[in-house]
């Protein structure tokens, strides 16, 4: 088997060595829509706040960046296996993740919130949501948060993508979801979100599970690219480009303090 893999490796190396010469940075986003941060239209083009920010950073640092969609639950392995070079998929900077990848400085921060069908009358507390079925996206900080504070009293149902959680929330198959507040507000602004659901409450911030903000992820060996992104983030913050992009999607400050 090893021999075969080596042979295939040699074959593949010959096949794509031409491609490898061009230095493009592959920026990995989660393969499903995550409004308003990243959405896909039918022409195959990604857009959204995070995509705009990415292009601004890359332009500032003279990097040739392309968007590459990867399954969210495999996005860290994809980074470490070299299929992408950067993760920009609203990933929170947490201690646990920092063991396997490096992060840039944060570029926004969002608390977790609870969204539920319009008929919901409870409060967004562990007692208020006792016995309910709560949908969360697998491998997110919100899943860790929900496990820590709601895991004992409510049933957690895990999904591969937040888009699927929203879908099942609209279909009434779960009683609530716990997710990033800003992304949930993006969902509530869509027609299906508007007609089904409402924001029940914003949850108190927890540093242990939610981390210290959202940053871009890099391979541990890639400190040069990380430094370029940090410089890029600082530059677009200073030049006002950051605020200009934010105004297109939000009417408040999402950077935090």
């Amino acid at each position, binding site marked *: *088997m090893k021999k*075969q*893999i*080596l042979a*295939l*490796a040699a074959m*593949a*190396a010959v*096949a*794509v*060595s031409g*491609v*490898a010469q061009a230095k493009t940075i*592959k920026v990995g986003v989660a*393969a*499903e*829509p995550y409004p308003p941060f990243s*959405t*896909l*239209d*039918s*022409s*195959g083009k990604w857009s959204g706040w995070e995509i705009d920010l990415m292009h601004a950073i890359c332009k500032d640092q003279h990097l040739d960046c392309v968007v590459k*969609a*990867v*399954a969210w639950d*495999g996005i860290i*392995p*994809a980074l*470490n*296996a*070299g*299929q992408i070079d950067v993760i920009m998929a609203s990933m929170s900077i947490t201690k646990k993740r920092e063991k396997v990848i490096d992060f840039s400085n944060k570029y926004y921060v969002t608390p977790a919130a609870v969204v539920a069908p319009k008929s919901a009358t409870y409060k967004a507390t562990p007692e208020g949501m006792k016995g309910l079925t709560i949908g969360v996206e697998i491998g997110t900080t919100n899943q860790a948060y929900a496990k820590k504070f709601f895991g004992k009293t409510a049933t957690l149902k895990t999904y591969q993508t937040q*888009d*699927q959680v929203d*879908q099942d929330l609209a279909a009434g198959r779960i009683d609530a979801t716990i997710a990033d507040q800003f992304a949930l507000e993006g969902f509530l602004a869509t027609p*299906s979100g508007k007609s089904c659901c409402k924001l029940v409450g914003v949850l108190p911030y927890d540093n242990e599970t939610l981390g210290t903000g959202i940053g871009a992820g890099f391979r541990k060996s890639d400190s040069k690219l990380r430094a370029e992104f940090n410089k890029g983030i600082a530059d677009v913050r200073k030049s006002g480009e950051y605020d200009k992009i934010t105004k297109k999607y939000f009417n408040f400050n999402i950077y935090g303090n």
Partner: protein
Amino acid sequence: MNWLLGLFEPGHALGLLAYSPPGWGGPLLVGLAHTMEVAVGAYILGTVIGVMGAYGKLYGGPVTKDLMAVYTTCVRAIPELIEILILFYLVPEVVNQVLTGMGYGRIDLPPILVGTVVLGFVLGAYMTEVLRGAILAVPHGQVEAARAYGMSALQVARRVTLPQMLGYALPGMANLWLNLTKDTALLAVIGFNELTETSLQAGGTTKAFMLFFTAAGVLYMVISVASGRLFAMAERWARRGQPGIRGGGI
């Protein structure tokens, strides 16, 4: 009832399936093309592995035979989804480690290439078994007669064994092809935009899940029916001149 109205309102349904944006017909066809590319590539690779595997299993040394047995048993006993998942991360990592070890830089393996290689590797195990059975079905006297004429091993394979076994192998190979076209859907789980993943993305964006899954299903059926016809024709051609053991049908 939105979906139902949507389905029967021609403007709406046609609009969503239209070829150019905002319709999703274009991406669906691109997904179909990706599905076909991966399937054809993996089928060729799998057949090459299968021919080598079958000959290795039949005429190889004891070590080759055992290694082949391990390969076919393991690959066929583990769910394809898990094999794809393991190999999808393992192959690029191994390739890049080999390359950096030899002093080259990292390279980017496009998912379409990795997907093709992985599916071809898995298919090879099944193909080995199908081809091995077909080679065994060729009457041994024929091989001996060819040898008596002084043909080399390669000549025997090219002139006698391969043409004759094709008739026996084609039904099995047709089945493997049909399974393969469906197995490409598993690449959706790793975010590769083939037909099934594209229909999920289209459904997720437009919320018209039924419409897009049905459309994708129809496209898969077209592949299935068309390739079924082609393989039936190929089998008739390969069996020309053979006594009709099964060719007549029931």
